[in-house]
C-alpha cells in the first residue's frame, strides 16, 4: 500500500485553489426553488445557501461545499489532474467524450468529484465532495479513483475523512467499470477503518444507485442534510414497478432517519461544527498530538 502511495504522491498534489473562480454566483438576487422567495445573494451566501425564508437547502457545487468546510476556503487538492477515460468508446444519442467536454466547459470542473485536504477548525482533515452538475455527479472510474486516493491520503497521513455525496449513481457510460467502483470505494474504506480513522458520510440531495449503495452508506457516522433525497432506486422507477403512489416524504432524510439508515439530520450551517465535534470524539488521540 505504502509503495503505491509514494509513487503517486508527488504528481497528485496541487496547491492553487485561489485560482478558481469565486463560488459565489453572479446574480445579486436569487429566487428559492422551493418557496420562490427572492433573496439577496450575499444573505444567501452568508446562510450557506439555505433559504432564509423557508429553510430549503439549495443544491450547491463541490467547490462551494469545500469553501464552507475548510478554514478560510484553503485546501490542497488530491489527484486533481486525472482525466476521464472513455473505456468503452461509449455513444448514446451523443458521444461520451462530447458529454464530458460539455460538462467541463459548462462548469469549469474536470470531473464529478473534488478530493482535498486542509484544516477544519485548525484540525487537518481530508474531504471529498461530489459535483452534481458534472454528469449528475455520476461515479465512473475517475470519481472512484479520486475518492480512493483521498481515502489513502487520509490513511497515510492518519487524518479523518469526510465525504459530501450527491450523485445520480454509477455512470452508465462506463458500465461495468463504474459498477466496480462501488467495490473499490468500499474496499478503500475498509482500510480507513483498519487504521482507526473515522469516515463521516454526509448525504446531500440527491443520492441514488451505485453511490448510495457503496460509499455513501458506509460512514461510521451517516449525516444527512434536511430533506435530502437518498435511495437505491429512483421514485419514478419504483412507482412504475409497484404501481402505487409513493408515500409523502419517501426517501427523504426524515424517512432515512426513521428507518435507521442515518445517525442524524444536520442543517448545512451547522455541519462544519458538528463534523468537527464528532471527529474529536471518534479520533481524539490525533487531536492531542
Amino acid at each position, binding site marked *: 500500500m505504502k509503495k503505491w502511495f509514494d509513487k503517486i504522491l508527488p504528481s497528485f498534489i496541487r496547491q492553487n485553489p485561489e485560482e478558481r473562480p469565486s463560488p459565489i454566483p453572479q446574480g445579486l438576487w436569487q429566487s428559492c426553488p422551493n418557496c420562490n422567495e427572492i433573496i439577496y445573494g450575499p444573505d444567501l451566501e452568508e446562510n450557506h445557501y439555505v433559504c432564509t425564508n423557508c429553510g430549503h437547502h439549495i443544491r450547491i457545487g463541490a467547490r462551494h461545499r469545500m469553501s464552507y468546510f475548510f478554514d478560510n476556503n484553503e485546501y490542497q487538492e488530491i489527484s486533481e489532474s486525472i482525466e476521464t477515460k472513455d473505456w468503452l468508446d461509449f455513444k448514446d444519442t451523443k458521444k461520451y467524450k462530447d458529454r464530458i467536454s460539455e460538462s467541463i466547459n459548462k462548469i469549469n470542473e474536470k470531473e464529478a468529484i473534488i478530493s482535498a485536504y486542509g484544516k477544519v477548525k485548525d484540525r487537518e482533515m481530508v474531504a471529498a465532495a461530489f459535483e452534481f452538475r458534472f454528469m449528475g455527479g455520476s461515479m465512473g472510474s475517475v470519481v472512484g479513483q479520486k475518492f480512493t486516493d483521498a481515502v489513502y491520503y487520509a490513511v497515510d497521513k492518519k487524518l479523518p475523512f469526510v465525504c459530501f455525496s450527491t450523485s445520480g449513481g454509477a455512470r*452508465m457510460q462506463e*458500465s461495468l467499470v463504474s459498477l466496480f*467502483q462501488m467495490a473499490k470505494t468500499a474496499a478503500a474504506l475498509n482500510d480507513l477503518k483498519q487504521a482507526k480513522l473515522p469516515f463521516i458520510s454526509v448525504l446531500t440531495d440527491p443520492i441514488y444507485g451505485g453511490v448510495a*449503495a457503496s460509499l*455513501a452508506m458506509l460512514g461510521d457516522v451517516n449525516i444527512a442534510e434536511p430533506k435530502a433525497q437518498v435511495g*437505491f*432506486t429512483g421514485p419514478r422507477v419504483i412507482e412504475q414497478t409497484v404501481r402505487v403512489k409513493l408515500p409523502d416524504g*419517501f426517501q427523504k432524510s426524515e424517512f432515512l432517519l426513521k*428507518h435507521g439508515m442515518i445517525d442524524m439530520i444536520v442543517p448545512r450551517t451547522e455541519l462544519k461544527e458538528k463534523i468537527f465535534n464528532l471527529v474529536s470524539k471518534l479520533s481524539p488521540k490525533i487531536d492531542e498530538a
Partner: protein
Amino acid sequence: MSYSFLDFEKPISLLEKKIEDLRSSQDQPDVIQSQVDSLNKEIIKITKELYSNLSIWQKVQVARHPHRPHFSDYIEKIFHNFDEHRGDRNFGDDRAIIGGTATFKGKPVMLIGHEKGKDTKDKIERNFGMSQPEGYRKAARLMKLAEDFSMPVITFIDTPGAYPGIESEERGNSQAIAYNLSVMSKLKTPIIVIITGEGGSGGALAIGVGDNISMLEYSIYSVASPEACASIVWRDSSKAEDAAKAMKLDASNLLELSLIDKIIDEPLGGAHRDIQKMSSVLSDHISEQLEKCSSLNISDLLNERHKKIMSYGAIE
C-alpha cells in the same frame, strides 16, 4: 414446459421438428435412423455457425433463455450434500437468493446465488431473481459463517437487478448492498464468483466481489440492465439493444477490459443445450480455482484480492 426457441434459433428448431416427425413416422427403423443421423449432423453444423457469430443482443437473449440452467440446477449437478441455510436473522428470508453449505469433491463449501425460479409459481415466489435487502443480508451472514468455519464461498450470479420496491427502500437496499461490498473485500476465506446468466447492477455485485471472477461464455454483466440503461441514457427503454451494445456487456469484451478473469466455455448451442456438460465444465473450473486459492495463505489471498479491486478502472 414445452421447449421454446429464440428467434435466431429457428433453423435449429425446424430441424429438430423434422427429427420428431420422422421418429413418429411408419417408415423402416433403419431408414429413419440414417435420416435422423444426417439431420443431427446438420443441426450441429448450423448451431456452430449460429453460435460462432452471435451479436451482443443475441448473447443477451441466450443469457436470458427460458431454458438457461439456474443456480438450483448447478447445486444439484455439481455439488453434494447440500443444505439450504435460510434467513437473514433480522427480518426474513429472501427466496431470490439461495444460500447453503454443500460438499465439493469431499470438502465443505458455501454456495450463494440468485435463483430466478422455474415455473410461474416458483418465479413469483423467487421474485424473478430480484432480491430485497434480506437476500443480501442473508448472503453476508452466510459469507461470515463460511469465514468462521474456514470454507470457501462460491457465488452464482443471475439477476436482472435489485428489486425496486417501497419496502426495499424502507429496509435499506443501499445499505445492504454497500455492506456486502465491504464484507466481501475483506472476507478471510476464498470467494469464487461465477456469472452464469444476467449480471445486473448492484444486485449482482452484492454477491460479486471475490478472488476470481468468471463469466459463462454467453452471460452478461453491466451497470444496469440494457432496458434500464436505455431508459436512463436514451430516455427510451426500447433502445435496449443499442444500450447492450454500448455497454459492451458480454464476456469477451469484459475480459478484454480486465474486469473479469476468465470466460468459461459453454457447450455447443449454449448451456441450455447440454446442462450436464455445462456442469462438468463448471466443476473443473471450480476445482482449478479452489486449488489456486488454497495455495495462498489468507493474507496473500487478501492482498491479491485488494490489488484486483484497486485495479478496476485504475487510471495511470
